[in-house]
């Protein structure tokens, strides 16, 4: 028994991730935390998407199920679980079964290397970014399998289109990623700082990339401006196309002739596809945040230094949660004063109280210090999620040939150009 406790305690003084330290217990704990956190994030994304989309469209979104529709995702989940499980008559049963799981598996496995902090990752492979790109490309297989297993002409064409789109934009993503990796091998102060010749030891590990940004005192977004910005822009566009979201969602649009690959899926299987899609969105946003936006570092980590600034920025998590609690209480005040709404009012007040409590806990110094890295990382990823929803509300859809044209004839040449220029600047400067 003492040995087990010793084993658990031994990790607490290490400065490595559990995987790197070889500590199975903590690795499992982190895996469970990431899994639960991701599931909660997907549920929250579902609610947020419907509400934000609705508010952008001058309407309210779900308001009935729970106060302000907060319980809507749960109602949707229950509905999907209780739906009839239809399998097309001549469908290939094994592949039909496996396809959603492949998509979800690929999307969730990516999170093994996502760094929420310097030691807050499940593991830190030295091929971290390569692993992420590779595993997320396995979800293409799931899409193809789903289209094939439906044994119907239109889902097959939709699946092939969807996977062709994903594969094409992976190339553009790769170019942008390589530009960012190139920047990790440079050492210098500031974007155009004069330095000795670059040390040449770049890294593919996710934690290493973020630490390189810290050492170089600049987020790769602003490095060699505008090159880092353009590379980030290419990745930001390619990642939207990669996850089949608007404006690149022709393969799954309802008003088009060819149906999407998930047409024949109903109930729980369909919800697995949606789960995989949201998880993939969060995964590629994590890549973008890690590579260009400085990962878990707070804004102005190198220009506004010092204890006071650290304190100011460390108050953000608590303040944000208190702000959310305030919004919830404003909503409570505006609830109709009618007996039918009593339960909802109490529910919303309780929700606001929970948020406020979390905010207060986040002010306590030990928690405050530990939560910093995770908070900033999650905040940046949340910004990307908002962008995703904003794109969906604003843009019309690209036609399929225009979509492929953008991927191959616009993004790829610009990506190669940025790569070459980054390499030249990295050697010269």
């Amino acid at each position, binding site marked *: 028994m003492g040995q087990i406790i010793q084993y658990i305690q031994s990790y607490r003084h290490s400065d490595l991730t559990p995987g790197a330290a070889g500590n199975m217990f903590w690795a499992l704990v982190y895996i469970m935390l990431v899994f639960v956190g991701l599931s909660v994030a997907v549920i929250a994304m579902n609610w947020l998407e419907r509400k934000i*989309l609705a508010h*952008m*469209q*001058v*309407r309210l979104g779900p308001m009935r199920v729970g106060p302000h529709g907060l319980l809507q995702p749960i109602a949707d989940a229950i509905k999907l679980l209780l739906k009839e499980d239809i399998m097309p008559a001549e469908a290939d049963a094994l592949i039909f079964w496996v396809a959603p799981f492949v998509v979800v598996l690929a999307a969730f496995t990516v999170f093994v290397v996502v760094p929420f902090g310097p030691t807050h990752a499940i593991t830190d492979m030295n091929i971290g970014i390569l692993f992420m790109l590779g595993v997320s490309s396995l979800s293409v297989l799931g899409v193809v399998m789903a289209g094939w297993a439906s044994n119907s002409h239109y889902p097959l064409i939709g699946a092939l289109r969807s996977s062709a789109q994903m594969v094409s934009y992976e190339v553009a993503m790769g170019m942008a990623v390589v530009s960012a990796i190139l920047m990790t091998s440079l050492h210098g102060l500031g974007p155009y700082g004069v330095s000795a010749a670059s040390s040449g030891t770049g890294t593919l590990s996710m934690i290493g990339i973020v630490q390189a940004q810290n050492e170089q005192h600049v987020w790769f977004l602003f490095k060699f401006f505008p090159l880092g910005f353009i590379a980030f822009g290419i990745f930001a566009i390619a990642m939207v196309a990669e996850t089949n979201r*608007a*404006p690149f*969602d*022709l393969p799954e*649009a*309802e*008003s*088009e*002739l060819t149906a999407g690959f998930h047409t024949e899926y109903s109930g729980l299987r369909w919800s697995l596809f949606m789960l995989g899609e949201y998880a993939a969105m969060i995964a590629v946003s994590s890549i973008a945040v890690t590579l260009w936006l400085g990962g878990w570092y707070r804004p102005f980590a190198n220009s506004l230094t010092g204890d006071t600034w650290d304190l100011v920025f460390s108050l953000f998590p608590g303040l944000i949660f208190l702000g959310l609690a305030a919004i919830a209480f404003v909503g409570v005040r505006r609830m109709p004063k009618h007996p039918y709404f009593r339960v909802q009012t109490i529910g919303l007040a309780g929700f606001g109280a929970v948020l406020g409590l979390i905010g207060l806990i986040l002010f306590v110094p030990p928690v405050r210090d530990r939560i910093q890295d995770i908070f900033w990382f999650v905040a940046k990823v949340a910004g990307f999620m908002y962008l995703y929803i904003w794109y*969906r*509300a*604003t*843009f*019309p*859809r*690209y*036609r*399929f*040939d*225009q979509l492929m044209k953008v991927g191959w004839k616009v993004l790829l040449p610009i990506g190669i150009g940025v790569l070459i220029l980054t390499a030249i600047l990295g050697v010269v400067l």
Partner: protein
Amino acid sequence: MTDQNSSLSHLDLETPEKPFLDANELVINMGPQHPATHGVLRVILRLDGEKVLGLECVIGYLHRGVEKIGEHRTYTMFNPYVDRMDYVAAVSNGLGYCETVEKLLNVEAPPRAQYVRVILTELNRIASHQLWLGTHALDIGAITPLFYTFRDREEILKIYEKYCGARLTTHAFRIGGLQYETYAGFEKDVKNFLDFFRPKIDEYEELLTTNRIWVERTKNVGNISAQDCIALGVTGPVLRASGVKWDLRKAQPYANYKSFDFDIPIGQNGDTYDRYLVRMGEMRQSVRIVQQAVNALPEGPIMAKVPKVMKPAVGEVYHSIEAPKGELGYFIVSDGSTQPYRVRVRPPSFVNLQALDVMCRGQLVADVIAVIGTLDIVLGEVDR
């Protein structure tokens, strides 16, 4: 069917002898139930891979026999039926019918009635174009303008409801003028609406006009030349977007459009983008017309001296107006009795739909939906 001397022979339209199917072609049916066909329209597409070789529209799913009904109703009783044809722009349908019968009876609506008619008809033009914009953008994938346009359209429908009690099938006009006097606060409501609406057109344009995805989806999609338009009998914004400056409000003025000052937006290329710009321009011009009309609204009677039992003299008359969708014409033959002998409606959507084949040739399948949207058809009018 193809007249060798007609200007359309270069298009090689279908003749009954030519087979519709070919060995390498794929025939796809966009069934009567489809989210993007704006009603019960069936389109049979002949494809070669992704390219459209030709298409055939099968209509009649909404045929209700309106023209036949017209032969068994008196002129006044038939008035509510015309609203149901183009149910989106019911007020202008009513205007066309009432003016045609007034022409038959040789009466003229009093000035106040004409001003109110113009106000309500132009508001209806705005409402119809708003619905068109919302659904057209939705088909192309922009899901937000739908909600904005419907929200703003509500204000117009509120005015209609206050005036005549109905939002959609308004039956607003009567033969000889109006039945209801404008309610107290009508002018204030209309002026408030205009002030409310002017920045909204800019809002719609901001979302779409310079959006590169929108431009790529609509430029050079569904081109039709002016020559083809005239040969097919296409009217309305489709004709004007191809460069032909023909608007019945200016060319053959009716009601009292002569006393208003407005422009006619023209396009150049005859593609979907030009049709979009033309309709946006028309919304602005309608606002201008309504502003002038409501500023100059005279006092006076609202109904002309029309016999209670209408028995027009034997004869026939054709009168057409510029409905939001094109030239809406009524041909009424009277045999001297209280019921018309024949009421023939020339619906703009029906004639415009014939241009769908020409516009879709050589386009990709994904564009067919955009072209159907840009034609702005209403199946109630196509089928009657």
